[in-house]
């Protein structure tokens, strides 16, 4: 672990440290993006250097940490806490989707990156979000190919993930 952290970029160890800190203090979710937080807002949402015009939507905090690790993303996040799973009865109302819609209404968002996993349910989640977010005047993008179909963002190597973020395409 220590060896691994030594070679990981600071953003990763910072995110990890914050995650551990949040668990230790008391597990809280950011009131804005639903990332793990040690205060009302998480460290990313509190950071004035982050670009509020771009929101990257992820399924869980592990994916958020994986993307932070690339250092390729400077915007804000939105953590859905799951993916649509019709067979298990997990519909849109069980995810933080309404909360995302409200953010688009209230925040100066210009682009939403749908970084859900490229498996069947992750793709369904992205398609559903595309439909829900269509009425808003925002650009909707998806990570570029490179993540294996059925794979998990969390396990993709940092370079590939960073590249697929930079080469994201309009959805």
């Amino acid at each position: 672990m220590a060896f691994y952290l030594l070679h990981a970029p600071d953003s990763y160890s910072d995110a990890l440290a914050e995650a551990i800190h949040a668990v230790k203090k008391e597990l809280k979710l950011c009131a804005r993006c639903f990332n793990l937080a040690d205060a009302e807002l998480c460290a990313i949402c509190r950071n004035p250097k982050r670009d509020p015009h771009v929101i990257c939507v992820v399924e869980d905090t592990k994916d958020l940490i994986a993307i932070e690790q690339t250092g390729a993303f400077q915007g804000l996040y939105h953590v859905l806490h799951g993916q649509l799973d019709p067979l298990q009865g997990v519909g849109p109302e069980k995810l933080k989707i309404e909360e995302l819609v409200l953010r688009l209404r209230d925040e100066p968002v210009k682009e939403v990156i749908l970084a859900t996993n490229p498996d069947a349910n992750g793709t369904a989640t992205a398609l559903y979000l595309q439909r829900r977010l269509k009425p808003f005047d925002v650009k909707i993008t998806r990570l570029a190919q490179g993540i294996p179909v059925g794979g998990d963002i969390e396990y993709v190597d940092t370079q590939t993930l960073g590249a697929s973020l930079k080469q994201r395409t309009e959805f």
Partner: protein
Amino acid sequence: MEGIVLRRIDYGESDQIIKLFLKETGNISAIAKGIKRSKKRFPHRLEPFRVYDFTLRKRKPGQSLYLIQSADQIRDFEEIKEDIRKIALGNFILEILLIAVKESHPHPELYDFVLKTFRNLSESEGIFPLWFYVAIHVMGFLGFSPNFETCLKCKKPLQKTEKNLFNPARGGLVCQQCATLSKTDKTSVTSEALGVLQFLKKASFPAVPRIKLSSQTRTEIASLLTNFITYHLERPLKTLPFLQEVLLKKK
């Protein structure tokens, strides 16, 4: 053995328990060891709406759980995964198969029908008639074939000009004369909906997308067939609220 994936459940850190619908043996449960981590045996995850040739082995004699040794993809209905309405309908079909096909009961005709459904679903834009067509015929293959032609009681052909009532439990309708004698048959069926149901019962796949449906008829048939399926499968379907949301709700 040729088959499709119905449902995957994560099992520990790296395995999945997968319910398969096999052409020759019906539903079985199988474990895919290391599928979440190792790329050696499974270069890709096993996904729904794809056809595979599975190599399976019984783990121990007498045990019902199989081990998936390998899975070669034969066919991918990838267009289904590009449209949220198709995904919702596809999951609805998977759920019916999960509930109604018994372990190790072969259903080769139903299997062929499901693959035809996937092919039509990936190629077609007319989701509503396909939904209703598939619901009627999948239930038929499972032994619950509805009757839209003759009155359940007097056996006379149904007249579209009359007020006919649908009985989900018996999977058919009673005519106006017989209906006055009964209190259990409640849902009245419009002549337009009855015509569509009669057509779909007899039609083959290529004719299905040609049907045009008014939004009232869509809602009416959706509710009628939902009651029918829910009654016979003896439970509310988990996939239905999502299917109704993406198909029936105004955007």
